[in-house]
């Protein structure tokens, strides 16, 4: 049975389109004065956040509240979790509280899969380690479709630290299902060894890829990577893989620039590119609430979820 949204791979093409179409309707709700819907009244959504991510947590919280769900925020800091309570015991606690859905953010890849073994409700992955972040991919696809009018056939470049990026993994799976052509662009050190088995193209050369791209998605690069010898210096990274004004000028006129945030301005993206009208970075945040509403609605409103996968 469909039950969870842990991987973008859990979504068929039809599932993904249903989420986007539902989000499209829900976006209209966000525009009216009464933004609240009664749909999930009496349902409980737990935000279980083991990593600090105020943006994502607030986004899920707003989505659940707009659908009238009860929201419980369970953050690892200052709770029994930080005192060494196991994920399983936390799961059993949430189960006892009657959580219909658990939105989990965790530093360990696969934690949502483990959690799904111990709770009866739906598990929604809000980012697990270096694995996946499916609602981010959905909101990216939604933002793309709103700007470009379509996803099928779009040429999307995903640029940066693919190796450690849950956003990249989810986007590759989702965009492939939706018919976009994805090219990953990164220094070889920041690509997984078997990336050639992924359903996408791979390039080390940003300048060669840019003129052919409709969408350029810049990934956050963490400076810690520099100390682990993934690249020699921030400046060299920025010079070879950063999106600055000169590179931006080489994009065709309709192309858009995306970033999942938070950005390192001046590192992977220059300030003027981030703030340009062709950047979707701000609307990605607004679309995040809408898309997460769609996901929660499709998972929780009925007798069983309309989307997602099982273990």
């Amino acid at each position, binding site marked *: 049975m469909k039950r969870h949204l842990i991987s973008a791979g859990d979504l068929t093409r039809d599932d993904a389109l249903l989420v986007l*179409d539902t989000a499209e309707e*829900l976006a209209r709700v966000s525009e009216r004065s*009464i933004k609240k819907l009664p*749909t999930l009244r009496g349902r409980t959504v737990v935000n279980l956040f083991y990593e600090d991510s105020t943006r994502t947590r607030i986004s899920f919280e707003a989505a659940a509240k707009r659908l009238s769900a009860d929201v419980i925020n369970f953050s690892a800091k200052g709770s029994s979790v930080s005192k060494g309570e196991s994920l399983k015991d936390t799961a059993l606690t949430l189960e006892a509280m009657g959580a219909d859905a658990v939105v989990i953010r965790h530093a360990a890849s696969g934690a949502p899969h483990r959690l799904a073994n111990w709770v009866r409700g739906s598990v929604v992955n809000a980012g697990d380690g270096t694995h996946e972040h499916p609602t981010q991919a959905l909101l990216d696809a939604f933002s793309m479709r709103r700007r470009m009018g379509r996803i099928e056939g779009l040429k999307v470049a995903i640029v940066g630290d693919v190796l450690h990026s849950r956003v990249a993994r989810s986007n590759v799976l989702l965009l492939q299902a939706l018919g976009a052509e994805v090219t990953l662009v990164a220094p070889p050190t920041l690509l997984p060894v078997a990336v050639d088995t992924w359903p996408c193209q791979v390039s080390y050369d940003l300048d060669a890829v840019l003129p052919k791209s409709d969408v350029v998605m810049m990934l956050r690069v963490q400076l810690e990577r520099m100390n682990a010898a993934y690249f020699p210096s921030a400046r060299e990274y920025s010079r070879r893989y950063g999106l600055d004004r000169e590179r931006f000028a080489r994009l065709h006129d309709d192309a858009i620039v995306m970033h999942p945030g938070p950005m390192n301005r001046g590192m992977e993206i220059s300030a003027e590119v981030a703030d340009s009208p062709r950047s979707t970075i701000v609307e990605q945040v607004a679309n995040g609430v809408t898309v997460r509403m769609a996901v929660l609605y499709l998972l929780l409103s*009925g007798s*069983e*979820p*309309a989307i997602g996968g099982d273990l």
Partner: protein
Amino acid sequence: MSDARNQARAVLEGPDIHRALTRIAHEILERTKGAEKVVLLGIPTRGATLAFRIAERISQFEGVKVPVGTIDITMYRDDLRLRPARPLGRTDLPAEGVDGRTVVLVDDVLFSGRTVRAALDALNDVGRPRAVQLATLVDRGHRELPIRADYVGKNLPTSKSEKVKVYLQEIDGRDAVLLIKGDDRPGAGETNGER
């Protein structure tokens, strides 16, 4: 076709539907003094189509352009948890909005009244109409809530186990209302089965 197996009987054909909608259009004009400040809101999917047809008739008769739109009630249903999560319909309010206007809700089949109850809730969240009226192509009885239609195309006596299915040219390629017998599944017929 499954209708044949289930012993479907056409209770309204194309011309009957045409006449019924014409009558409803006239009645609306009469009751609302020339459709002044009226907004037609159809409940997707077929109620929306009917709303557009009625609006078209009104403009033919009186030359008035009645604002028309759609209001999806899925998020307000009281039976959401009885079935798997379902896709949303379109809510498209006319630019004029609904505040201070007479909203005529349009649906294809009036049955338990629960859809209309949901529509009233949905309407409440998008504005404050002066009055709300209800038009339906078929009233098949068996109300479960204190709701009645102001405009009815045809009153159709049915048993609870029967199903009423409305076909419209724009969606289904033909106009007809079928009465389908013999579905004894538990719960069958408790909604009109169209959404």
